[in-house]
């Protein structure tokens, strides 16, 4: 079955937020994130003939993006030789205890949060896919970026009551969709 087709004109509207979120939790810098996504789209365009339609468009783009992110990690890592790792004891008494001291450092917890968040993030994006594109965009701007009602109305040329109707429908749909696993 190869029903999936590429439609690059819609990539930004359909996937940029998903890719943005996917990348920023991994590279933690919005400029780098933007660059990586732009590279991903351009690489996708170049290799669009290789797309066989077996995966969804989004999965295919993510697989390209993952390679871009790995390349980025490699690039930063090649500078690492210059850095020195220093471990200093905070005071003389704790000398020799540094391993134990560092056992409970916060990294594990961060890793857990990262996994949890990326799963929750995926769940949210899957639910957002069920909304009409424009409504999803408005809902995201309002809910994730906390845009002013006025600013959104102006951008989309709608009235505040239109906006609240859209938000209401979106919130209802999102709550029902997320209900099973996340509430």
């Amino acid at each position, binding site marked *: 079955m190869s029903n999936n087709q590429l439609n*690059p*004109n819609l*990539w*930004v*509207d359909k996937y*940029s*937020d998903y890719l*943005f*979120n996917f990348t*920023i*939790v991994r590279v933690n810098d*919005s400029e780098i994130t*933007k660059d990586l*996504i*732009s590279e991903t*789209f*351009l690489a996708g*365009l170049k290799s669009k003939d290789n797309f066989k339609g077996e995966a969804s468009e989004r999965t295919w783009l993510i697989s390209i993006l993952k390679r871009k992110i790995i390349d980025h990690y490699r690039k930063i890592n090649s500078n690492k030789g210059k850095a020195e790792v220093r471990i200093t004891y905070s005071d003389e008494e704790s000398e020799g205890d540094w391993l134990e001291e560092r056992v409970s450092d916060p990294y594990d917890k961060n890793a857990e949060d990262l996994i949890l*968040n990326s799963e*929750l*993030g995926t769940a*949210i994006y899957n639910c957002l896919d069920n909304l009409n594109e424009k409504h999803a965009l408005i809902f*995201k*701007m*309002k*809910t*994730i*970026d*906390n845009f002013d*009602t006025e600013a959104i109305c102006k*951008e989309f040329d709608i009235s505040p009551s239109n906006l*609240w109707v859209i*938000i*209401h429908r979106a*919130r*209802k749909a*999102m*709550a029902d969709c*997320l*209900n099973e696993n*996340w*509430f």
Partner: protein
Amino acid sequence: MKCEDAGQVCDKSQYKEASFWEKLKLNVHLLYCNTCREYTKKNVKLSIVFKKSNLKIMSLHDKKELKKQIHQEIAK
């Protein structure tokens, strides 16, 4: 207050855009309306889930730039 209005005030208050009086009227409505109480419960949970998710999205400006790039590339 009608249920329709109650729902909207509940939505607005998720974004801190409901006035004091609206919220007061909503709370009175919730005392006797089961349906709206359910909706409020779900709606608050949705807000919590979004806060917890810490999602980020790309700015409109960046999206426009990116679209331009893609269009140029396609036109080549």
